[in-house]
């Protein structure tokens, strides 16, 4: 990644995501939106899939966005962004686009990416549009009342994966969305977390720069206090623990090469530097029912995933 911001004092000051939005107190995705807009700057078009960040930011007749913004539906944010990109390209060629290099960014949640918007995302990646697609992952359909998605982890409680005698929360594992995106051989894809803002902002800058070549993708970990069932002051801590326990590894895929980023790279080099998964799980109500055996099972999955990524990084 290109290091544009070395320290906290290098971060951009101008706010392009206005206060007064209706996201819940302590919303993780809202932190992501602030930094996406701040980092991308005013010459940006945002195309938003239906989801928490659409519902809470654009309550008619008001909007929190201070950049041109388009919402169409749940399943077609990537398709609509493809059209915006094509329009900019054509009008630029004809000398009618006077805004210079304009960023086109899709913002979609896990429901709009893992599930409903997957085909339009795949189409956009395959056609090679000059668009940055940002997935903010809060691991369920939250604004509609916490229903499971393809991004919900195994054993998590949601209203559609209740905890009882027959099942213990979600049965299936979280989908490897980065794997699906990388299979399209895009120029750049990376994971980031709202706890590591400098890393995240540098990845946004890098991904935007690479859109000159083709589509890029960011997967941002963005915890949800009401959906994960934890007190709202712990949102950033939750994201930090997701990274530090290896639950959500930070890495980038840059022109076919995978690179692990700190602190994930440190814990792969020295497993003692990885915190026990329990620290991430224990303050979340959605995992309150887990037994030691089930936590052990999840921990094995985390370790196996880190080993898998380390192998990919060594190729």
């Amino acid at each position, binding site marked *: 990644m290109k290091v544009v911001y070395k320290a906290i004092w290098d*971060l951009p000051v101008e706010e392009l995501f*206005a206060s007064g*939005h209706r996201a*819940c107190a302590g919303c993780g995705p809202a932190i992501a939106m602030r930094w996406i807009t701040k980092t991308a700057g005013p010459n940006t078009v945002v195309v938003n899939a239906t989801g928490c960040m659409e519902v809470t*930011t654009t309550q008619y007749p008001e909007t929190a*966005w201070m950049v041109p913004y388009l919402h169409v539906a749940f399943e077609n944010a990537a398709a609509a962004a493809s059209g915006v990109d094509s329009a900019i390209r054509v009008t630029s060629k004809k000398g009618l686009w006077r805004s210079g290099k304009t960023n086109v960014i899709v913002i979609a949640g896990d429901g709009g990416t893992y599930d409903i918007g997957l085909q339009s995302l795949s189409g956009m990646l395959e056609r090679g549009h000059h668009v940055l697609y940002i997935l903010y992952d809060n691991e369920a359909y939250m604004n509609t009342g916490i229903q499971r998605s393809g991004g919900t982890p195994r054993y998590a409680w949601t209203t559609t994966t209740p905890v009882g005698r027959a099942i213990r929360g979600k049965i299936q594992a979280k989908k490897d969305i980065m794997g699906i995106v990388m299979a399209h051989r895009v120029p750049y894809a990376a994971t980031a977390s709202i706890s590591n803002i400098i890393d995240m902002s540098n990845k946004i800058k890098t991904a935007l720069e690479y859109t000159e070549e083709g589509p890029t993708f960011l997967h941002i970990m963005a915890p949800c206090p009401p959906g994960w069932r934890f007190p709202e*002051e712990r*949102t*950033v801590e939750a994201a930090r623990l997701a990274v530090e326990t290896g639950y959500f590894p930070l890495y980038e895929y840059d022109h076919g090469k995978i690179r692990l980023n700190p602190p994930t790279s440190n814990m792969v080099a020295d497993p003692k530097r990885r915190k026990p998964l329990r620290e991430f799980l224990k303050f979340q109500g959605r995992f309150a029912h887990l037994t030691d055996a089930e936590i052990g099972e999840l921990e094995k999955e985390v370790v196996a995933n880190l080993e898998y990524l380390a192998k990919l990084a060594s190729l």
Partner: protein
Amino acid sequence: MSLPKVHEIPIGGIITEPGSSRRNLTGGWRSLKPIIHDDRCIRCRICWMYCPEGTIKETKGEFVVKGRKYQYKYEIDYNYCKGCGICAHECPTKAIEMVPEA
């Protein structure tokens, strides 16, 4: 709030005023209020960085607090602060205190 007349609304669900959500003062959501104790603040910028509402204002200038000179000051705009407490939880010097709303 006065509602616009139907012929004043642009066709197509278009919102023409960027950042108009600022009309919606979310400060009323708060049950706990963050108070920054300026004498304990080391101006690290962390609360400003993490606030989901972008409602911690950074002011540049010369500020003297207990004989120490600082270039920045952090203040909370209570019109929008929802009282989530992230700033207090992340502050490395525990300079932010959450007190019950009166």
